[in-house]
């Protein structure tokens, strides 16, 4: 008999009881929105070296946090010979209540072109702090089979600061400077 994973069930239940969750764009939609002239996107994900990590921390004034970064290069024309329009860097940030996936469009000169939120999810602080709760979302998109409520209502309330996203963008700007700049 196949054992039932009670932990997974409990996590799924608590995650779906989260009041606020919205999907704005899939990774593919974000690529199109940020580089409408692109004819193709190529996975050029990064593995930062120890030296690059140090440079990123120095530039951003923040811990580099991760060695691996998901990056797509946007091209017009042939993926090898065509012109490079820029990059799309993907990231997730975790706040006190919220988990936000976002995409940053970077120009070839490493300047920031645009930022788009992909998904926004909220839950209780204790769920956000649980690595298992976060793990089920991080790096996923709707295409990966994640379904979240209708997400149509708009939330009104005290302003929730987006410091984590702002810091994340600063870190990505530094990574672009160190590892993507042409």
């Amino acid at each position: 008999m196949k054992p039932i994973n009670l932990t997974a069930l409990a996590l799924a239940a608590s995650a779906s009881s989260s009041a606020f969750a919205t999907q704005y764009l899939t990774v593919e939609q974000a690529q199109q929105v940020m580089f409408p002239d692109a004819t193709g996107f190529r996975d050029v994900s990064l593995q930062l070296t120890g030296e690059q990590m140090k440079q990123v921390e120095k530039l951003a004034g923040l811990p580099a946090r991760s060695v691996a970064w998901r990056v797509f290069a946007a091209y017009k024309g042939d993926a090898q010979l065509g012109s490079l329009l820029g990059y799309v860097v993907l990231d997730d940030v975790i706040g006190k209540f919220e988990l936000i996936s976002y995409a940053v469009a970077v120009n070839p000169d490493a300047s920031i072109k645009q930022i788009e939120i992909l998904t926004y999810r909220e839950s209780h602080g204790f769920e956000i702090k649980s690595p298992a709760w976060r793990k089920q979302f991080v790096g996923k998109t709707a295409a990966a089979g994640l379904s979240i409520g209708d997400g149509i209502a708009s939330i009104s309330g005290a302003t929730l600061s987006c410091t984590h996203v702002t810091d994340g963008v600063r870190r990505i700007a530094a990574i672009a400077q160190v590892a993507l700049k042409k």
Partner: protein
Amino acid sequence: MRRRAQPWLGTLVEVTIADTLSEAAAALAFDAAFGAIAEVHRLMSYHDAASDVSKINQMAVGSALQIHARTATVMRAALDMNAVTDGLFDIACASRLVEWGYLPRAGLESGLHQGLARHQRNRPALHIDADGNLQKLAPVLIDLGGIAKGYAVDAAIDALQASGVAAACVNAGGDLRVYGETAFPIMIRDPRAPTQIGFRFDLKDAALATSGSYFSQRTVQGQPRSALVHGVDGSAVVNNISVTVQAPACMTADALTKLVLLSADPRHPLLQQFGATAFII
């Protein structure tokens, strides 16, 4: 229903378009809406050294500055709101927020905070003429955090209307406005459990803003503080309620939440004057 969100004004700004526009037309409308928000951010950010707000904070007493028409609109509304609320609503509370660590220290800030109201007994700290020339008459440190988000929402709504969008919603971290024939579902956070829904209803052709201190409360040097400052006595608003104001424009709704929160009166006589209604949860 198409929906996009970008980080601006220190929060997430969400634009929802409820219209069967072509993909290309919707993309242009989103660009126009976020473009307006970005412009307000650049002009009115406390943190950006090149913003009008930073220039006002840095300029010497006695000097004058030409400010952008958008900044002038918000500053005039803020000064007017300060006058009609007898100083309860005050953009000159930034020095308190600096003191409590909510805002970074600006370069020049000697002889700070008396608040706009206290100056007004003798003369106002700031004066703007009809051409957008601002004069600084007394030391003052301003932050438009209590009104600029609402204005940015109005500016984005104007941009969407100008782009021919029939119905839309713009939400800047809780300050929102909807227009068109579509009724938009709105959820208000429960101030005692902010990740839960406290109230849910549909909103059509109106603006709504909610203020509360639940996300910004913290202890600073043993004292409970928040990002909401009482304009007259300079104390922090620390409680577990939230105030929601509905008004025709979001800038008005945003500013009036502070009046209701500080007066604790959801039937304050000034609300009617601005065509607004309020409730406390």
